[in-house]
């Protein structure tokens, strides 16, 4: 397990997991979400650890806090929007504090690579008074998790390690020069004044929390992760996270204050750095949080007026900012050492699509035919918003579709009996669809809920969940029964269909639309990437094909028209047969050959 003097090329998320193991964490929990998922997956592979996927981030955070109280060092992982779900236990856990080290690793997604918003988790840390590390690369991802686990015990508070997509999903070198720490025995002691947050106790904890915060300010001033690199005195750059590397790339000769521990900020260190440089620029990913706080110290800084506030930072954007700042405020000219070439415009876009043989495609194909209003949700199936399926009306957050369908149908019920549909994936349903279903049952809704059950959390790379009967550690477990659950939550009509059977799917959906009250249809077909059942592939008889294009309306990436011909790629086809079903000229046939 030890590799002294030996560097490894690790993905940021692999490095977080390694840091958790080396830092003595033996319990990890979380909910999958890009760009955080691989942290817990990698952690689960270390000896002597227990890693669990929780149904959602709130459950995960609560379990993590419980494990910490019991005396086990713990990590809890999630994406930025997951922290919205976990916010409730997170904020109050900072009042209670910990027993064994507790570290929340939360991965933000500036640039919307795979997310519905661009929120900055550092706001939450400030809301909760939780200390924050911001690693810039894999080495720091490793080291900061170790440090955060140690400090969590020392300062009796959960720590936040804030990642971003470019930290989590970039690989860089990691050197480890110590043995993994052995977990220490920290027995639980009953202490209601610390752990029972009734108002009278919570009030006292708030006072302690503020005292602790002062102590953390002292740590921040001397943290090895906050350091100055002197260069030119005419410009000083204060930077955190991967943005530091962009700034370093853009202008290596500037003076830098690199901040790795960013909450609370080292005010004295910042003041002394500021006094040595003429112009001060803050370069940080996402919102102007450090910038605003530094300005509140009465220090004159520049930041987002020179840098983009939407999307991800890049070395190019940072170079441009430095160049513009120097041009406007000084006579120094800064020469950017690279020059972009002119792009080729108007290229055909290649948006992500549902995979060949994805069961979701068939379901949405039918929904489109039925002209249903569809309140959407978060998962691969959100791709059905794109042409040709174009059958999604909303997508807000995990579990939102059912609630939105309920509200929509209530608002129109006096004038219309249109049955509003909500689609939700199996993992998403477990995450936060069940309470929405109870609401619909309780308040007597007239909606159709379709659970798109592909037997896995597909979007993030096939993680098990409570509906699959498997755990993250690969063990068999209790399997949640969606149909029975729907019945006891107040559904009036419950059916199961296989979306590969397009005819039956249409029949059942029509029936479910016609039924009164809450209809639940479980469309069950394992993700084709996870469990492909059909062998062979389909092909087109070009003599019979009239080039009508009906099969293209499925939006299957295996079917394409090129050089005036429609063809099916035998490499991509998974033999689901949807195209043969929609072809009115019997031009599509199956080839049984096993590839």
């Amino acid at each position, binding site marked *: 397990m030890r590799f002294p003097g030996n*560097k490894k*090329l690790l993905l940021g998320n692999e490095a977080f997991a390694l840091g958790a193991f080396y830092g003595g964490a033996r319990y990890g929990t979380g909910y999958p979400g*890009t*760009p955080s998922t691989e942290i817990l997956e990698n952690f689960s592979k270390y000896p002597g650890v227990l890693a669990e996927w929780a149904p959602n981030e709130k459950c995960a955070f609560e379990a993590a806090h419980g494990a910490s109280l019991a005396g086990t060092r713990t990590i809890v992982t999630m994406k930025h929007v997951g922290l919205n779900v976990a916010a409730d236990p997170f904020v109050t856990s900072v009042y209670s504090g910990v027993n064994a080290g507790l570290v929340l690793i939360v991965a933000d997604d500036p640039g919307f*690579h*795979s997310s519905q918003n661009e929120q900055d988790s550092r706001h939450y840390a400030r809301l909760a008074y939780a200390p924050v590390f911001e690693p810039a*690369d894999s080495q720091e991802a490793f080291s900061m998790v170790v440090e955060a686990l140690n400090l969590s015990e020392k300062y009796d508070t959960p720590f936040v390690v804030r990642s971003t997509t*470019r930290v989590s*999903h*970039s*690989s*860089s*070198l990691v050197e480890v020069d110590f043995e993994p720490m052995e977990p220490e025995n920290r027995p639980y002691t009953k202490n209601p004044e610390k752990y029972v947050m009734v108002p009278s106790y919570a009030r006292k904890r708030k006072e302690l929390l503020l005292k602790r915060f002062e102590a953390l300010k002292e740590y921040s001033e001397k943290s090895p992760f906050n350091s100055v690199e002197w260069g030119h005195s005419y410009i000083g750059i204060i930077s955190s996270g*991967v943005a530091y*590397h*962009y700034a*370093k*790339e*853009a202008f*290596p000769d500037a003076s830098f204050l690199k901040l790795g521990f960013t909450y609370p900020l080292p005010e004295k260190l910042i003041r002394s750095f500021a006094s040595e440089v003429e112009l001060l620029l803050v370069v940080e990913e996402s919102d102007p949080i450090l910038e605003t706080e530094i300005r509140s110290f009465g220090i004159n800084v520049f930041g987002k007026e020179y840098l983009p506030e939407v999307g991800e930072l*890049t*070395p*190019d954007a940072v*170079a441009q900012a430095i160049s513009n700042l120097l041009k406007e405020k000084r006579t120094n000219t800064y020469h950017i050492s*690279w*020059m*972009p*070439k*002119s*792009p*080729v415009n108007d*290229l*055909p*876009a*290649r*948006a*992500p*699509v*549902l*995979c060949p043989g994805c069961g979701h495609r068939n379901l949405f194909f039918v929904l489109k035919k039925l002209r249903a209003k569809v309140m959407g949700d978060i998962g*691969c199936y959100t*791709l059905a918003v794109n*042409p*040709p399926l174009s059958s999604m009306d909303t997508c807000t957050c995990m579990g939102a579709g059912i609630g939105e369908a309920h509200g929509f149908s209530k608002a129109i019920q006096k004038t219309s009996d249109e049955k509003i549909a909500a689609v939700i994936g199996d993992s998403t349903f477990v995450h936060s669809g069940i309470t929405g279903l109870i609401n619909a049952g309780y308040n007597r809704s007239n909606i159709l809920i379709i659970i798109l059950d592909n037997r896995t959390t597909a*979007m*993030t790379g096939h993680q098990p969940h409570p509906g699959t009967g498997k755990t993250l550690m690969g063990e068999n477990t209790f399997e949640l029964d969606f149909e029975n659950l729907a019945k006891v939550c107040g559904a009036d009509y419950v059916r199961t269909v296989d979306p590969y059977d397009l005819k039956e799917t249409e029949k059942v959906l029509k029936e479910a639309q016609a039924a009164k009250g809450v209809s639940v249809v479980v469309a069950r077909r394992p993700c084709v990437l996870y469990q492909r059942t059909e062998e062979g592939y389909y092909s087109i008889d070009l003599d019979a094909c009239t080039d009508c*294009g009906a099969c*293209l309306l499925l*939006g299957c*990436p295996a*079917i*394409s*028209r*090129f050089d005036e011909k429609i063809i099916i790629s035998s*490499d991509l086809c998974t033999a689901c047969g949807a195209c043969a079903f929609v072809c009115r000229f019997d031009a599509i046939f199956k080839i049984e050959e096993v590839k």
Partner: protein
Amino acid sequence: MSATNIIIAGVGGQGNIAASKIIGEAALMLGYDVKITETHGMAQRGGSVHSMVRFGDKVFSPLIPKGACQYLLSLEILEGLRWVEYLKDGAFLIVSTEIRPPYSVSVGKDHYPQNIEEIYSKYGQLLMVPAKELASKAGSTRSANIVMLGCLAYLTKSINSEAWIESIKRRFYGKEKVIEINLNAFQLGYEFASNSDRGR
């Protein structure tokens, strides 16, 4: 040594990440600092994907600045065109002839540019590679990404063949047949680039 910058563009599922990891591990064996950044999540579903690999004495940003990339590998004929802004003067463009029309092209809403080779040529030295055919000859069309690495290996002299071969072996550790096919694919790519060079 200042950083060597490589962009690999392709379609989800073409082995983009594997190719970037093989380059990165080979560079690491030779003692270089290495950074790789890649596309995960949404774009895996048949969308455009890319990765960036950088190695040298010291690498800061995982993202390559626009105008600093010396090698562009396009695993599908169109995909590299999205990244030409990043190319440096005199860059090498290694482009697979494989065509995977996106939906908008299939339904006739969009078209591939007529003169793709001509456009690429404006940005540097172009090598068009029948990667899928060569991979098929090597034993599996899935090794087209490794054929492309063979071409890269010929054009960039900063990584020696021992490191390339060792890195490929480690990537597919324990899968003897896969290693054999991929080493064949690598060799065919290398020879293709070398023969094209002589033909110039």
